[in-house]
């Protein structure tokens, strides 16, 4: 079925988040690279992925996994050259796969030449590129993000004997966006990569660009103004490219990042994600429906980006204390799993490696309004290693096969950038692409099928959503609609079989066609529609009137 062309591409995309370092090592140095990634594009194409989101690959001292950048115009030597990147990009485009890269706009590494100059003396021309102060008492209302490692947002610089502002690690000084030179330079960075051919940027940590006294220094109007300006220039010179915001905020605070369709194209729906996990544990849809009820309407050209997991900890910031305690007690009893205000585990371990739960979560991910983003490795159910510090436990090498180094690299095991997962349940001999490709009902093949079903219609990405509120609170049911297409989604959030009666009077006369097997279900009549679901089961029905 040909897809409508006037729907923007990011509204019908399936995003795959990967780090070039973790994916495939082509030259045997133990670190993944672009040539390797290029070789694995077939795998992604088979999975019907159409957008890759690459994590930072610019030169960096790697003290924050690449989010501390020391050169915005190049590629880290471990991953290859700029030429390698161009080749990879071409291959991707040839397979109709778009590529989004990270733009860490808020801060740089303290090894970046800009900062080296800025700190060298107070009179340096680049001094104002960063936020300096003689005291560390400024902006007291701003919260500390990495509570497990930082005590303050100010750090002392012994060289210029003053404090500099950093919202993340102390080796990541914040750029000063009040300085027009900084803004111009950042646009130049964007322009550079857009000219190479990337299809969009994920802007990291956007709420924090601008600081003002007496505020929390998040989501300030000045920040939005800067972002709108960037967008304006983007639309002018590079139409069809996309900006994705990373802003861990409540829905009401997220709304301004879309403005009137003239700021970001997409933003991650952070508050929804932990509530999906919570709903499944509570066996109650209430947290999910409530957050979506509170989610404001966004301009028609904008889109939410939904995700289950990513490279960071599963953040519990956007929850009340009661909810956070509940999540910690149920999903992270072992305190080692907790980091900052979240849980640093992968999807499969969080869901007890329960195949049905994993399918249910992906079912919701693919059917709730927004564009889904899949974290690399979750499509085969990879595990994690909490012994690796910080969030590195969820950033282990991709497991391609049961053989040498899991098929990731030909190097010695000690040379790998991180050890492979090796336990009997999640280890690479058990969980890998090769063996799952051979098994008809593996998670990998199931993911391929659900992506294929999702792609048969635009309703999931672009349609409206209306919740049904059946009295059985364990059932999450909603209707998606786009023009004359209507799809009913019913999810059983509980571990036990359930019966539910749905009020489908508005759709009386429609025949339900189950979308995976294409079998017909009874027609909607006057009476409430009775459905029974097994544990964690979900249905996608197309409503058809013939």
């Amino acid at each position, binding site marked *: 079925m040909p897809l409508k062309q006037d729907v923007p591409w990011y509204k019908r995309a399936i995003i795959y988040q990967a780090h070039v370092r973790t994916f495939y090592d082509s030259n045997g140095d133990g670190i993944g690279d672009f040539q390797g990634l290029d070789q694995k594009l077939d795998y992604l194409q088979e999975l019907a992925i159409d957008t890759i989101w690459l994590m930072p690959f610019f030169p960096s001292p790697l003290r924050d996994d690449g989010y501390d950048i020391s050169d915005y115009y190049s590629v880290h030597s471990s991953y290859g050259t700029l030429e390698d990147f161009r080749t990879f990009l071409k291959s991707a485009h040839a397979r109709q796969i778009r590529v989004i890269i990270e733009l860490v706009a808020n801060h740089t590494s303290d090894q970046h030449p800009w900062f080296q100059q800025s700190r060298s003396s107070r009179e340096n021309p680049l001094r104002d590129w960063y936020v300096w102060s003689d005291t560390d008492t400024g902006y007291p209302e701003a919260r500390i993000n990495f509570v497990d490692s930082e005590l303050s947002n100010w750090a002392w610089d012994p060289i210029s004997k003053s404090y500099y502002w950093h919202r993340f690690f102390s080796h990541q000084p914040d750029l000063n966006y009040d300085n027009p030179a900084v803004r111009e330079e950042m646009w130049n960075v964007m322009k550079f990569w857009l000219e190479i051919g990337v299809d969009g940027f994920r802007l990291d940590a956007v709420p924090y660009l601008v600081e003002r006294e007496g505020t929390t220094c998040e989501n300030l109007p000045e920040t939005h103004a800067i972002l709108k300006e960037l967008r304006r220039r983007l639309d002018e010179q590079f139409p069809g490219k996309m900006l994705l915001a990373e802003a861990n905020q409540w829905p009401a605070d997220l709304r301004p990042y879309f403005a009137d369709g003239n700021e970001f194209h997409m933003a991650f729906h952070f508050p929804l994600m932990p509530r999906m996990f919570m709903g499944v544990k509570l066996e109650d849809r209430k947290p999910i429906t409530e957050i979506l009820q509170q989610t404001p309407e966004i301009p028609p050209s904008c889109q939410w980006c939904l995700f289950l997991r990513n490279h960071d900890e599963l953040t519990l910031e956007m929850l009340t204390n009661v909810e956070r305690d509940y999540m910690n007690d149920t999903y992270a009893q072992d305190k080692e799993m907790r980091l900052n205000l979240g849980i640093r585990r992968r999807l499969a371990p969080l869901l007890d490696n329960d195949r049905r739960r994993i399918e249910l979560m992906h079912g919701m991910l693919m059917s709730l309004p927004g564009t889904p983003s899949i974290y690399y490795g979750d499509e085969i159910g990879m595990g994690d290693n909490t012994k690796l510090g910080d969030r590195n436990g969820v950033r282990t090498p991709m497991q391609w096969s049961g053989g040498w180094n899991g098929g990731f690299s030909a190097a010695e095991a000690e040379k790998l950038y991180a050890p492979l997962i090796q336990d009997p349940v999640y280890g690479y001999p058990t969980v890998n692409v090769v063996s799952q490709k051979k098994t008809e009902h593996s998670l990998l093949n199931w993911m391929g099928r659900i992506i294929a079903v999702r792609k048969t219609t635009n309703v999931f990405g672009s349609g409206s959503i209306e919740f049904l509120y059946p009295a*059985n609170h364990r059932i999450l049911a909603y209707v998606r609609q786009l023009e004359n297409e209507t799809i009913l989604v019913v999810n059983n959030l509980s571990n036990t079989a359930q019966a539910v009666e749905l009020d489908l009077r508005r759709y009386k006369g429609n025949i339900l066609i189950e979308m995976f097997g294409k079998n017909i279900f009874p027609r909607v009549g006057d009476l409430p529609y009775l459905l029974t679901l097994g544990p964690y089961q979900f249905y996608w029905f197309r409503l058809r009137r013939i």
Partner: protein
Amino acid sequence: MAEVKLAEESVLTDDLLRQLIDVGEVDILVGVPTHNNAKTIGPIVETIQAGILKFFPRERAAIINADGGSRDGTSKLIASAAIHDARPNSKLYALRTFHSISTQYANSPARGTALRTIMASAELLRAKACAVISPESAQITTDWFATLLRPVYTEEFDLVLPTYSRHRFDGILLTNLLYPMARALYGLKIREPYALDFAFSGRLGSQFLAQNAWHDEMAQAGSETQLTLAAIAGEYRICQSFLGTKEHVERHSTDLVPAMRQTVGALFSSLEPNFSSWSARTGSQPIPTTGAEREFTPEPLRVNRKRLREMFSKGVAELESVFQSILSPSTLAELQRIARTEDVPFRYSAELWAKTAYEFAAAYHQSVISRDHIIQALAPLFRGRAFTFLTENINGSDADVENNIESLCLEFERTKPYLLEIWKQ
């Protein structure tokens, strides 16, 4: 052989069943039997929800209202209190959906059926702990849910009965008849065998449902007492929790007979089926009591002793023919003697009262006349006893009153063999 229950005999209407299916399994159920309580029920339901959410925030909970044909919108009020995502603007914050369902079990109130509906729902919903709250408990606080439910939910008790601080002369039927007699017969020091606010475990509820205790008319009316007695007979774990002061409810003296039917009637009916259990016990054991007794200065109550005395004397005189069927000749003669006493006050001693009560129990068991009439006949004699109790305690301290009640209880325990003697005549 257990009777087969026909579909028509079920307390669960189709509508209620459907609602129960939607609620699904719960950990805690709160039952509220009502009849035209719209004026008072709103704050009570709010307190129930606040209490459950405070002490059991993560547990699955629901409220079920068993309504006896209210016409003032009581059921709707309660049903609308549900915390449900379809109604997003609840005042209270809840982690989960908190169902609040309502069902009409009959067109006129029958407390026994209401309780049975609640118990049946608790069993189908597999509730671990169930509390029953009276719609007249205006003095309810959120702490009640910790005191009533924690013992059941976390400490494995099966029945939690309330205790209250009350005016020393409030509840004389309890302190002078129900408490001493139940204590002497069943061997447990339960202050309030007739409780309107209590909690029970799923185990006890299922067991009680299975018994055929619902057919006896008298028992239907006094199901709470029956439940207490069934728990005692079944050797379930019982404890008492302090719930605060008992708010005084205005009642007429004409309310005595219905109250006696529900309580004394239930107590007497329980004696026959549980004979093997109570006949073997001697003495009485204390039961665990939690919750601090609070200092309580009661408001003074108006007391009309003269009236009690009159009704006692008149009763003894006019009901002679009835008493002849019930009481032993010596007891009757003694009663007539004190009724004729010229000097006020006369003394209806503890010994005589215990004998009277036991003879009535035996007469009830043997059905010498209609059982309901036996209960009614006891009322004037009770008034006489109340008169003596008031007279003896009007000037004493609270400790003195407690001592008097204790000695009355001991008298009942001492006289228990007499009941066993006359039981089979």
